[in-house]
């Protein structure tokens, strides 16, 4: 698997969510995703960026353009050093939230992307990695 492009963006304030949506759109267009796939990717990026900022107290988004034979992919890693998630299974449930959201960010992003990975250690932080293949 080749990495054709690799960049990392800061996520601090709520304005950065808009910026991440724009970047995710640009990458998805460049990689050649269909309009519906672009929309799914941008939506997942928006959800996960908001989690990084709201729940994780800020962090980074790493974007990678992957090539695996004839298939191309976009991998997005969201990393923070926030409070972490004590019960992942619960957090992944539709509608579960500890804040004021709808509790669809994690579960919904998982449905929108082809691959979904999450690691979290209480007190240390959270990393969510999602990938979509053409």
């Amino acid at each position, binding site marked *: 698997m080749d990495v054709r492009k690799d960049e990392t963006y800061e996520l601090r304030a*709520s304005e950065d969510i808009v910026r991440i949506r724009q970047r995710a759109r640009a990458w998805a267009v460049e990689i050649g995703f269909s309009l519906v796939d672009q*929309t799914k990717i941008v*939506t997942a990026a928006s*959800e996960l960026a*908001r989690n990084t900022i709201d729940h994780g107290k800020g962090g980074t988004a790493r974007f990678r353009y992957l090539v695996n034979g004839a298939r191309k992919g976009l991998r997005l890693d969201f990393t923070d050093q926030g409070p972490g998630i004590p019960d992942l299974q619960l957090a992944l449930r539709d509608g579960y939230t500890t804040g004021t959201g709808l509790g669809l960010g994690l579960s919904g992003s998982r*449905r929108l992307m082809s691959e979904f990975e999450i690691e979290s250690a209480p007190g240390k932080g959270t990393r969510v990695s999602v990938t979509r293949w053409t």
Partner: protein
Amino acid sequence: MDKIPILRMGELLLVTIQVDLHDRMAVQLQDDLTDRIVQTGAKGVLIDISALEVVDSFIGRMLGNLAAVSRVLDAETVVVGMRPAVAITLVELGLELPGVRTALNVERGMELLGGGHVGRAQG
């Protein structure tokens, strides 16, 4: 800070969302729209999202809240112009906008809201 314009059209208010919404703009819009409903006594609100390329759960929640607040103030809300790719994505996200009426475009939305006022024609 940018503000979302709210236009008055007879008994209706038209909100056209032209930009990718910051979270704070979304909150501001809710406050502005609620004030305008009460000031104008509007009976209906059309929210045109045809320019929105993405609706995530935050914006979806805002649309649901706008509809609920309007309802509590006796105005009906119709969200118009949702793009097909957005509709598909919303369903996969798990967000089905319960309580939010939708229509294809502004004209259809106006028909839908006008349809609620047939009482006058009878009177």
